[in-house]
């Protein structure tokens, strides 16, 4: 294990480029075997086994169209001498290609040869199936060599340049409550730790690519790589696309890789995400939600201390904040910095901070607040170990993630308030804890029990969505054969914490900072920040998921309107979550009107299915956005937001086969009839509902 090194990406790319060029010049295409149905055609070269053509049956899109550019696969080996070797399917060792049935092909490569010409006792067998337009690649690797296989690039598309009608292509994936998008020419990279799928989106069609295993067995990279900058015969300009399985296949072992699924779709990102939703419905375990979070609700986030020991709000003074929440109909306080050394200090310890008061005082505040129907959600982090704390020095170092060379991975910490820290001096840096280590999971669970003991209605795990830059731990003695994939430890730890909480109360709410969708099985509450360009993809995936969005501005109508439009939960954060609700009365007043409107028309605006922009069209004489909801009885609502800062707009809402329409706004909640044309003042929203 200690012989493994991470290969520098630039060298890896340079090595790849050379090897591919050599192979392309020598490759001789053979015959084709194909899988085909009405939606997709996939053709493989019988000599190399490479995927040489991928056609969308519904459109003319040929995603992979030049056989001479095809690459069957690539392995990245570790040698004991710590040198990397790439292994491509060698032309002298042809594939065994067999059409097993009309919808299945089996490919097998044996006795691979590395780039130095050395034969390796490694075999790769791939079953490719085509079912109703879904092309699935399932590979098994038999590694009888003494060398670790670090990664397997498969399936591999050597020429991914041509979009239908020559239109540009973007790559989209789930991340942080959003659907980031990047042009394919910019070599976007998508990682399964963030999103189990990516969409290659063209104007009105796309390719959906999925890691068909939601358990995070290892990292899968979706890689789009630009090859050659100028056109030439031997190395034409093109984009390669492959999925890279960072699987670490041990010597003398066999591993079945996570299947990769490809499907074409017609439409925009909604159609691509629909494919994910259909698969998700099979494996996603819906978590239990307490009743209060299912109703219309809003939160306040409040930070009371930092590692700079400001001790801003003693526990005994917290009740005044809770009282303001109660007075203003705010349902919960996300309490930050309550623990020892404040926010981002002393992690993962979940002890109280003596500078703020006693355990009993905090416990009593939580009970008093919740008696006022203001739930307390305790903010915490279990990912890190504060390097400045004795606990790290004495114990937690045992569970820290290490690089292949045995060096500790660090997380940089966060800066607070003082000029010193804002200059990045004296920041509490942290070691990254190994969630794959069962012993650390027990440590984390003990700390979590301290949160449960305080009696709060839930917790919010900040930074639950990442492990800093760390992907794998290579340190030995962590209870498994390394390396361990950190994101693979997320689900076991979450399951362990959930079981612990269930002993106290199944209603104890798990929420986190933008947990990945697969992690939402345990963390149904998701807290994040949005901007004007954010895509409400998580809301589209799950219309009822508690998605909490921060509101900071002192007259923040813009973000509140988006929260209404996308059925997010308001989280009030005056002074960057360091003030009282009443510090920004304009924002608070408008937020209350929005929640009142949602309570009044709950069937339309809260309990209904969110369709984003599908099912209606809206035109206006200014900047506007809209969303569509469908109630359980099939009635539709359209929320139109005027994004103009000073101009009243007229918006025309068109619904297919509309019923009688009424319109209401946060400021005029009593609905009046409308023909679908509405005037909306600047920075305002209107809700049109079918009767």
């Amino acid at each position, binding site marked *: 294990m200690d012989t493994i090194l991470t290969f520098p990406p630039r060298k890896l790319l340079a090595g790849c480029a050379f090897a591919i060029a050599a192979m392309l010049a020598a490759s001789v295409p053979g015959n084709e075997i194909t899988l085909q149905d009405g939606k997709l055609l996939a053709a493989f070269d019988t000599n190399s086994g490479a995927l040489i053509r991928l056609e969308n049956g519904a459109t003319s899109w040929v995603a992979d169209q030049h056989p001479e550019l095809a690459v069957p696969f690539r392995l990245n080996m570790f040698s004991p001498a710590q040198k990397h070797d790439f292994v491509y399917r060698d032309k002298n060792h042809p594939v065994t290609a067999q059409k097993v049935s009309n919808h299945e092909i089996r490919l097998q490569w044996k006795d691979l040869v590395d780039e130095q010409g050395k034969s390796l006792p490694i075999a790769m067998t791939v079953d490719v199936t085509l079912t109703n337009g879904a092309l699935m690649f399932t590979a098994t690797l038999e590694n009888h060599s003494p060398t670790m296989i670090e990664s397997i690039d498969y399936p591999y598309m050597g020429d991914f340049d041509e979009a239908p009608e020559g239109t540009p292509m973007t790559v989209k994936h789930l991340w942080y409550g959003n659907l980031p998008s990047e042009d394919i020419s910019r070599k976007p990279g998508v990682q399964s730790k963030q999103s189990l799928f990516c969409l290659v989106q063209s104007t009105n069609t796309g390719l959906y690519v999925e890691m068909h295993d939601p358990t995070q067995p290892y990292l899968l990279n979706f890689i789009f790589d630009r090859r050659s900058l100028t056109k030439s015969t031997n190395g034409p300009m093109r984009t390669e696309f492959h999925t890279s399985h960072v699987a670490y296949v041990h010597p003398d072992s066999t591993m079945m890789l996570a299947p990769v699924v490809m499907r074409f779709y017609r439409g925009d990102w909604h159609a691509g995400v629909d494919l994910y939703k259909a698969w998700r419905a099979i494996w996603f375990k819906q978590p239990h939600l307490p009743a209060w979070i299912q109703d219309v609700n809003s939160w306040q986030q409040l930070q009371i201390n930092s590692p700079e020991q400001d001790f801003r709000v003693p526990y005994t003074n917290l009740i005044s904040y809770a009282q303001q929440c109660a007075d203003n109909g705010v349902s919960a306080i996300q309490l930050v910095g309550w623990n020892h050394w404040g926010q981002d200090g002393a992690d993962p310890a979940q002890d109280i901070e003596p500078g703020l008061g006693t355990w009993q005082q905090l416990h009593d505040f939580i009970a008093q607040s919740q008696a006022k129907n203001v739930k307390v959600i305790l903010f915490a982090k279990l990912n890190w170990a504060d390097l400045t704390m004795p606990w790290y020095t004495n114990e937690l170092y045992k569970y820290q993630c290490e690089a292949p060379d045995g060096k500790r991975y660090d997380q940089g910490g966060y800066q607070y308030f003082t000029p010193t820290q804002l200059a990045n001096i004296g920041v509490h840096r942290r070691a990254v804890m190994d969630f794959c280590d069962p012993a650390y999971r027990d440590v984390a669970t003990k700390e979590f029990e301290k949160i449960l003991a305080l009696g709060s209605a839930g917790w919010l795990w900040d930074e639950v969505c990442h492990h800093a830059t760390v992907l794998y731990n290579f340190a030995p003695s962590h209870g498994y054969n390394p390396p361990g994939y950190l994101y693979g430890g997320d689900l076991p730890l979450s399951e362990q914490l959930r079981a612990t909480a269930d002993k106290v109360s199944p209603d104890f709410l798990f929420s986190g900072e933008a947990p990945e969708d697969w992690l939402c099985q345990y963390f149904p509450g998701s807290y994040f*920040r949005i901007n004007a360009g954010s895509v409400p993809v998580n809301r589209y995936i799950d219309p009822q998921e508690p998605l909490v969005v921060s509101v*900071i501005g002192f*007259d923040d109508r813009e973000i509140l309107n988006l929260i209404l439009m996308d059925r997010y939960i308001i989280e009030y954060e005056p*002074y960057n979550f360091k003030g009282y609700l009443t510090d920004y009365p304009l924002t608070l007043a408008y937020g209350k009107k929005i929640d009142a409107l949602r309570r009044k028309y709950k069937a339309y605006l809260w309990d209904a299915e969110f369709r984003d922009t599908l099912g209606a069209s809206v035109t206006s004489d200014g900047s506007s956005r809209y969303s569509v909801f469908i109630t359980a009885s099939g009635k539709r609502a359209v929320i139109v937001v005027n994004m103009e800062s000073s101009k009243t707009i007229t918006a025309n809402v068109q619904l297919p086969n509309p019923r009688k329409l009424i319109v209401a706004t946060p400021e005029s909640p009593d609905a009046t009839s409308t023909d679908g044309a509405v005037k909306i003042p600047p920075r305002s929203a209107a809700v049109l509902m079918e009767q």
Partner: protein
Amino acid sequence: MASQRKNLKRQLLPTLWICFPAALILGVLSLGDMLLKPAFAGEVALHDDSVSISFDSRSGALIRFEDKKKKWNIERRPELGNSFRLFAPLPDRRWNPVLGPKQTATEVKKLSDHEIRLQWKNLVSENGGELPLTLTAEVTLTNGVLRFDATLENDSSLTVETIDYPYFGDFSTPSRECTNMAVWAAPHGSQDGLVPDELYPHFHNEKGYWGVFWPTKILEPDRSHFCLIQTSGEGVHVGVDTASSDYRWQYVFEQHPALMSTITEMVPPTDSISGVPVHLEFRVCHLIFQKPHSTMKLMPVTVQCYQGDQHTGSELHKP
């Protein structure tokens, strides 16, 4: 103005009583919080044909600064004036600021037509009581150039990590209708390639929201040895005399109390919002890490108004 303050105080007192802890810390950090300040005693001023600048004779706060040629009231509202801030962490608690507006100046004296001396002694810190610290500042005005010199005598057993000086509590646009005020900096000290960063009417927070109260920008010296606060046809050049530089400094901007909206990043276009003053703080932060029982002279800071664009302003920089 005094009656306005009194009314404001009457309105806010009940809220403050409820909100005491948060108000305390906001007050600690927000040097614009008038309620915590003493009343003004009088002004001590310097002026020439180009600029005028005034200091409160009791607190030593910088309360007025005007570009006379363009009639630009740069430091406009005296009640938002400020003097300095420093941090002297205690052995068992890091949070221990010393806030200028809470100190009484022992000397605010006009030494000549172009020089004022200010002095604060036995500074009272927020959590460590009175500390044997003496800050002596000299402000000179020569041909339109203001120069801020300061010396800190630290007779305490604490390290003074940072000091903010000079400190403008209400760095104003020429008017609220101003459509563009930006800070321009020249990366790596170059006079070429000046880069703007908008201050008004939009302000983008550039520090982690978790660790600041207000939208904040901090220009590091490796980005620029000087900065220009530029509006249409006029600007202010701020430079640090780095000839004796042996520590790091920063130009710091804080937009109080918040933005209108995080979507638009618009600064409220009014003098106050919800009863809270809207103001931009600007200060030079010296990261001095001054040892106990020592005396340190801060790097002088120069401030000069100019007419023209940023290129005119950058020509004032003398490396």
